[in-house]
């Protein structure tokens, strides 16, 4: 009964979303507040219904109702409760329902927004309704998670054990909040193009309306990608955290477009300039999100993230992607030349710096797009198969981003309209000098000596120091009495702190990524009990291997001690788990956190014994500063959240309170 309620709610939500699109469009044409209000109601109701449907699906998983095909295919009675719940979004159908939940949820938030002018809001609600109707019909007609099985099996087929992991349980919801959050930016951009305001005062306000949505989505996406990367790091047991895998790239493209959007929306908000470009990026970010959904779900790519799907569904997703993005960009091509507005600015100015930021971020996104799709296109066009992997991105993406990051610290110090390059150089002089010292120090201290890695460490330091220099400048640190500095620090808007934090976080990430990539040490050896392997200064000894039983798996568990000369010895456990339900094995990495470093231990298959004693293939990585790789993006996301709470983005809230 509960499952039927869910199915019914899902179909009703589809009808309401379609209704929302139609009524809002009619309300906009007739300028009728009543119709617009009804459309807003439909949007909120539709989100509520999807929430009911989603709760029903989770319920079916919790009680292991195997008469539901999706539950039978993805769950098992032996599975721990967390993964029963998480399996609700672990499959194609369930994750699509999650997608719809976030889409309608953001749609409801848009419908409740108080500060938007009538025309813009109604057009945006109509667009959001259309997106909702499209994705909901895709769900209902091709991927209904509530389809029943008759007869129901006694036991389910369980979830891919690689996905039975806490990080992966929370990775999709956060990721989807990011992906689909951009749909509101998309709808607001479409609405802005429809409203096509000729007056210049429209765009600064629009920039302010679109920015919170972009900020929130980008922050969610940052944490979502971070969790996915962390999962790949400790679950796959390959010692790496980013593989330039097509599916990783699919999530990275909207992130880059979103980051560009955040920055160009600032220009539009403050100066009314770049209106067309900001609209373009708002369309692009969600287009990349939909492209990612297509790539992952169509079967054109295969990876652990890819859901087992048939090409027919892929074609439908491609149609949705092509239809919505095609229409939106056609609208853009038609309307953009008529967009007016915006102040002028000199090339050397805050605006100019943000344009350069956008230039490089979009070029970087184009690189990731090319690297991801090119093998598919080339194979379709000529039959030739190529692989595009890390070396390609190291030669294209990395230099592009390096230039962008070198320029970055100057941007926030430049004045709007016309900047003073000489002044900026002076104000960054200390940071630059310290950066050079750090790079030289890194070159001298780190073994083996690598000039490029040392320069990379300098780059990370430059970002952090540059961000600090900017804040120090604004609060007149050491240049004014302490009381004055504190007063200024208190007066600094949250957005400014958010920016400093995000830029410094980027620097932290660069430090971690450079040091880990440049100086990691790997060692692999078959070990019998009592033998040890050396990775850099770490000695890893295999103490014991035993069979342990988990809730739904059997594992060969190795206990190993990690020791360094003069350091404390710590014990780690690493497992190879066998899941009888699906017949799969996974590795559980043993991680020894040592300050910023990781000692990463994988116990592999039994090796052929050399002298009769059983032995196991043990791989050990010493990943220096690996902690920063995951800390950096967290700081960046925190910066985004701080900016989100900036009073300036919530002026309308204050106005509303004052009016009440």
């Amino acid at each position, binding site marked *: 009964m509960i499952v039927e309620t869910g199915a019914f709610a899902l179909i009703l939500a589809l009808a309401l979303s379609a209704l929302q699109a139609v009524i809002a469009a009619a309300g906009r044409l007739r300028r009728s*507040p*009543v119709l*617009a*209000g009804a459309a*807003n109601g439909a949007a909120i109701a539709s989100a509520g219904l999807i929430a009911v449907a989603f709760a029903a699906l989770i319920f079916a998983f919790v009680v292991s109702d195997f008469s539901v095909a999706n539950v039978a295919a993805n769950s098992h009675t032996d599975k721990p409760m967390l993964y029963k719940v998480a399996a609700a979004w672990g499959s194609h159908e369930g994750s699509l329902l999650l997608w719809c939940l976030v889409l309608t949820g953001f749609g409801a938030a848009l419908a409740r927004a108080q*500060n938007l*002018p*009538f*025309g813009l809001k*109604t057009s945006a609600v109509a667009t959001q309704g259309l997106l909702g109707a499209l994705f909901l019909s895709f769900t209902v007609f091709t991927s209904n998670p509530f389809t029943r099985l008759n007869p129901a099996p006694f036991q389910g087929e369980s979830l891919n054990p690689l996905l039975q992991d806490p990080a992966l349980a929370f990775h999709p919801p956060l990721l989807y909040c990011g992906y689909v959050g951009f749909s509101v930016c998309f709808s607001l951009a479409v609405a802005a193009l429809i409203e096509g*305001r000729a*007056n*210049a*005062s429209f765009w*600064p*306000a629009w920039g302010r309306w679109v920015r919170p949505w972009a900020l929130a989505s980008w922050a969610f996406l940052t944490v979502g990608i971070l969790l996915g990367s962390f999962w790949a790091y400790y679950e*796959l047991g390959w010692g790496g955290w980013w*593989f330039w*895998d097509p599916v990783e790239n699919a999530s990275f493209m909207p992130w880059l477009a979103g980051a560009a959007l955040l920055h160009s929306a600032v220009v539009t908000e403050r100066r*009314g300039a770049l209106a067309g470009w900001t609209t373009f990026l708002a369309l692009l970010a969600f287009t990349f999100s939909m492209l990612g959904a297509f790539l992952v779900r169509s079967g054109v790519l*295969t*990876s*652990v993230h890819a859901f087992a799907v048939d090409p027919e569904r892929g074609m439908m997703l491609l149609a949705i992607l092509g239809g919505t993005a095609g229409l939106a960009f056609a609208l853009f091509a038609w309307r953009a030349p008529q967009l*007016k507005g*915006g*102040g*002028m600015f000199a090339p050397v100015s805050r605006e100019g710096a943000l344009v350069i930021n*956008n*230039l490089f971020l*979009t*070029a*970087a996104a*184009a*690189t990731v797009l*090319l*690297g991801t799709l*090119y093998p598919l296109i*080339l194979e379709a066009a*000529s039959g*030739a*198969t*190529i*692989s*595009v*992997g*890390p*070396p*390609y991105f190291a030669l*294209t993406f990395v230099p*592009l981003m390096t230039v962008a990051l070198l320029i970055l610290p100057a941007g926030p110090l430049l004045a709007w309209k016309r900047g003073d390059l000489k002044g900026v150089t002076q104000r960054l002089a200390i940071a630059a000098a310290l950066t050079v010292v750090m790079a030289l120090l890194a070159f001298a201290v780190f073994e083996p000596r690598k000039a490029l890695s040392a320069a990379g460490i300098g780059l990370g330091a430059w970002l952090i120091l540059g961000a600090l220099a900017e804040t120090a400048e604004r609060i007149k640190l050491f240049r004014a009495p302490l009381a004055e500095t504190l007063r200024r620090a208190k007066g600094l808007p949250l957005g400014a702190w958010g920016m400093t934090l995000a830029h410094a976080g980027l620097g932290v990430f660069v430090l971690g990524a450079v040091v880990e990539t440049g100086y990691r040490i*790997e060692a692999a050896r078959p070990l019998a009990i009592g033998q040890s392997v050396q990775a850099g200064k770490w000695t890893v000894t295999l103490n014991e291997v035993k*069979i342990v039983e988990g809730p739904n798996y059997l594992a060969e568990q190795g206990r190993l001690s990690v020791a360094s000369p003069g350091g404390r010895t710590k014990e780690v456990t690493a497992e190879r788990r*066998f899941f*009888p339900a699906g017949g799969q094995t996974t590795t559980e990495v043993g991680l020894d956190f040592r300050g910023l470093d990781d000692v990463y231990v994988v116990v*592999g298959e*039994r*090796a052929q014994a050399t002298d009769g004693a059983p032995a196991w*293939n043990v791989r050990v990585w010493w990943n220096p500063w690996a902690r920063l790789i995951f800390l950096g993006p967290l700081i960046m996301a925190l910066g985004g959240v701080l900016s989100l709470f900036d009073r300036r983005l919530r*002026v309308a809230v204050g*106005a509303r309170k004052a009016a009440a």
Partner: protein
Amino acid sequence: MKRVLLIAVAALGLIAAEPPPAPDRPLPDAAQEARAQRLFDDIRCVVCQHEAIADSPAGIASDMRGLVREQIAAGKTDKAIREDLVRRYGDFVLFKPPVRIGTWLLWFGPFAALLAVGAAFIAFARRRKTEVAPLSPEEEARLADILAGQELRRDPDAKRSDD
């Protein structure tokens, strides 16, 4: 308990059914082994999903690692080893695609995109400089008003909404 035993038997059976690949034998020369490791990162395991042979547990990845080590020991250059792999498995085996007419767009596209977007910005700025008049004082005042958040709810071009 019986179930656990059954599972254990099944698990062991599975392990027994699939003999593990022979463990890697690192090259005795540390410099040569380091070269091999660097090569492993750029060579794709031909039966896996986007995995380098450095990472893959598959049997063929192990064979390919052995092949690379053999050739290094035989004194071949990295370039010759890569060419040999391409002869055997095609361009697919290298994570760094070759630069040829068919991949020009791939290799030069990113920089072309940078130049194109940059040129578009410059062209746009030039055109605007000639055609855009500065805001009138009245427009400036309204802009300031909106930025101060006073006028956000009212939109002179539309009816007031009731929501």
